[in-house]
């Protein structure tokens, strides 16, 4: 794995990003635009399941557009994230906050695309909806906080 990260750091793209502070800054800025779209969509979808936003309407009406927003935001953040990761692959991958961020990302996305979707689609009982919304909210906010911690504490 460490050989792979070393190779990643030596690629032309990674060297180009590392050598340009303004390119790094621009990638980071676009990364945060994706973050806003993703976390905003996740807020809307999970607050709806919790019963505090757009209540009284079918959950799919909210979940479907919100999921599109989440996926668009994730695409933007993943593309820029990979480019930001490249030049710092070895250091970042060894950073526990980064590892936590990636674990939360994978869990939040998997939870949203499976359990959240099913609960929204089947109009499950109120308790199950609220529990799903609460877990989803914790996962996405945890991811957002881990993202903040990674850029601020490294």
């Amino acid at each position: 794995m460490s050989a792979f990260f070393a190779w990643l750091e030596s690629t032309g793209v990674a060297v180009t990003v590392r050598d340009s502070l303004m390119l790094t800054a621009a990638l980071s800025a676009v990364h945060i635009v994706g973050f806003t779209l993703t976390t905003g969509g996740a807020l809307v979808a999970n607050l709806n399941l919790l019963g505090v936003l757009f209540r009284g309407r079918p959950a799919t009406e909210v979940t479907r557009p919100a999921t599109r927003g989440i996926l668009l935001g994730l695409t933007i953040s993943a593309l820029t994230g990979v480019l930001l990761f490249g030049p710092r692959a070895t250091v970042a991958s060894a950073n526990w906050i980064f590892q936590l961020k990636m674990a939360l990302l994978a869990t939040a996305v998997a939870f949203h695309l499976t359990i959240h979707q099913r609960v929204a689609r089947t109009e499950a009982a109120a308790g199950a909806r609220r529990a799903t919304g609460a877990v989803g909210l914790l996962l996405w906010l945890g991811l957002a906080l881990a993202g903040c911690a990674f850029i601020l504490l490294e």
Partner: protein
Amino acid sequence: MLEWLEATSVGLMIRESAYGFQGTVAVHLMAITLSVGTLVWFDLRLLGVSMTGYQASMMYRRLMPWMFTGFALMFISGVMLFIAYATAAYDNVYFRIKIAAMLLAAANAFLYHRLTERRIADWDASPRPPGGARAAGLVSICVWVVVIVAGRLMSYTMF
């Protein structure tokens, strides 16, 4: 004036305490999600791109408390960060772009509420709102993207 701000206890606390700066920036970033991350759904409704089955007025009413909580947190944390680094921020070109973009966002919201929203009864349920409403939604999204991008660029160019 800028130096006086930096010398206040708020400025000192943010600069000197162990995690004062990081904590304030984290609140500032999380507040973006709450404000712009929810506002964008109203903008998309104005554009007729998303949530078209909902009345625009209903979207606004339901999202407003989240948006304004987020804006309040973002404003307070933003002012605290400015106080701590007033001189460097004031001289920073991206800070000026950010302030200009926020003034545009305010003007856009003012014009929307003053002009376009007055006839909302005519298009509230329409999946494709009139040009003025769509323009307001598009301008809002563009201007807030500029605010976010300029804000992030500040942290790379100020210190």
